[in-house]
């Protein structure tokens, strides 16, 4: 259920994108599809990091970590104004 999900920031090794993909966003989406039918990309990042953010369960996050090209899958963090 959605209550079991959290937002994760997924860091990808950009240079490891298979040649079958033209766009990194397609590769990110394909990586996500391999572990979840329903998860969607919240953001794809090009400059600050190489990767994307998405909603996953802990199990899906663990599974995604084993996919080729995935460097890290980090949970969302909440910041506060100072």
């Amino acid at each position, binding site marked *: 259920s959605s209550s079991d999900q959290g937002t994760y920031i997924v860091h990808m090794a950009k240079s490891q994108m298979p040649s079958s993909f033209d766009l990194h966003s397609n590769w990110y989406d394909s990586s996500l599809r391999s572990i979840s039918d329903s998860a969607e990309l919240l953001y794809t990042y090009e400059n600050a990091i190489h990767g994307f953010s998405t909603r996953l369960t802990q199990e899906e996050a663990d599974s995604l970590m084993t996919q080729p090209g995935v460097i890290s899958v980090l949970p969302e*963090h909440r910041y506060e104004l100072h």
Partner: protein
Amino acid sequence: TTRTPLFLGLDEHTADLFPEAGSYSDVVVGVLDTGVWPESKSYSDEGFGPIPSSWKGGCEAGTNFTASLCNRKLIGARFFARGYESTMGPIDESKESRSPRDDDGHGTHTSSTAAGSVVEGASLLGYASGTARGMAPRARVAVYKVCWLGGCFSSDILAAIDKAIADNVNVLSMSLGGGMSDYYRDGVAIGAFAAMERGILVSCSAGNAGPSSSSLSNVAPWITTVGAGTLDRDFPALAILGNGKNFTGVSLFKGEALPDKLLPFIYAGNASNATNGNLCMTGTLIPEKVKGKIVMCDRGINARVQKGDVVKAAGGVGMILANTAANGEELVADAHLLPATTVGEKAGDIIRHYVTTDPNPTASISILGTVVGVKPSPVVAAFSSRGPNSITPNILKPDLIAPGVNILAAWTGAAGPTGLASDSRRVEFNIISGTSMSCPHVSGLAALLKSVHPEWSPAAIRSALMTTAYKTYKDGKPLLDIATGKPSTPFDHGAGHVSPTTATNPGLIYDLTTEDYLGFLCALNYTSPQIRSVSRRNYTCDPSKSYSVADLNYPSFAVNVDGVGAYKYTRTVTSVGGAGTYSVKVTSETTGVKISVEPAVLNFKEANEKKSYTVTFTVDSSKPSGSNSFGSIEWSDGKHVVGSPVAISWT
């Protein structure tokens, strides 16, 4: 702001130090915060030329915000809410705008502090009146709204930084933080690394968790970390007691004054059945006990202005708010909704004794307005987060301090100056406090330096700001920490208080490249995936090379002693002031550590020449774990003084 330009020496006489092109600058300050109130006069583009051709940003429409609200001053406005909404659910547009519009005020305050246009006749309810301006009034502003009612989420922050880099901002200002985590887990640190690589200076607030030690946020060495100090301005308000004693507090209350007589006075702890009744939390005061009285509340837990609202709702007519040990003598002024004054801990203790022991206590409150020329100033704010750096103890943080107490800047039209729902007042400017306020001061000053020295790297700009910061008052006495009343240390003020006019001509700079920071990550023994998470590259640390955090070319020194012996630090300085012979002067407050510099003289024949030196800290006696000692290393050619703070800690 109406006072800090003068306090920082940025008056008309120093305008020629910052010869920005014509009446405007092409430097862009990006601010990640709660958005912007574009109708504020602080975003007037009068006199501004065309938007820089390098600018790739845009102005996004949304709730109560159209693209036409941007102009030649406010050249970018975006919002990032997908991460927030995926966790918190859809934004309630009756409470906040799903757009760059700032319904809170914080983001308008910070961005106008950094780079607001000049606005004459500014004040908050008549307080702090004058001409308001940001630190870089001719720079352009781009806002990235990432903070919402429920907080600021890392996926949104990263998306905003991602876009700000693509948009081509020159400075990024982030007055937010979130605890302490390793750099490879910290979205702000990761995003800041990418920005740094593109030549963008990233300035962040140090946090408001002081005066506790090791309470810093945003400590990555590629971030400029800013603590907070006071101004020479105050807003006095007397607490007058029935026993004839008066105590000076502060207040920004504007409204009908109390009658010219002493009124019944009660301690909130004696007007409540709650165990924490002294804090004036919502619903804890007994109306029958406070009606028609002045109520004394203790600071803590809930917002200061909310305590006044609670007193008012219960029928109280005034409030004396007392600091506790957590805040000491620091006086933060608020635009209370009833006559109120905030007093320091010492006065609070005396007043509390009076109100709880006198059989018929009485009091009054007299609001006195705005005074300037307060001495000593600056003093380090009690709330300003303190070192040592808990993530990397060998990097001294904060980097420096800047004005962050009782700062006037532009405000939203959607909320009153207290931010309380019950506050129906609307003001063009507000006075608030925090390292959130000091951070954009440095962001704006960095923009000024960037306009003077466009070729300088972010590290060079930070170096100039740090090595020219001052550590003493004009009489030579050290800056004070208001939390203790004693001299502050580099763990409190870093390199010292920012001094922009001297920063324009620092003589020498400590520069850093991306490669240097990658070596730093190797020195931390980061794994390859961890380095890749931070730096977005497949970087391999050279196994034949000895990496040391101590050798990161930082303009400060933090030495962690774990036994007697010698600790060596290497630095390289670049002569940006031209030819010159610099001699070193070392000061240290301990004889237990001998500090030697080799060579002791650096001779530069031309501009941009680089010279290295080594500092050896020889520890010949041990101290208890947790002991600290401080000093400084200063290079001078007679014209420039290039100072670096030293902090030695026994582990």
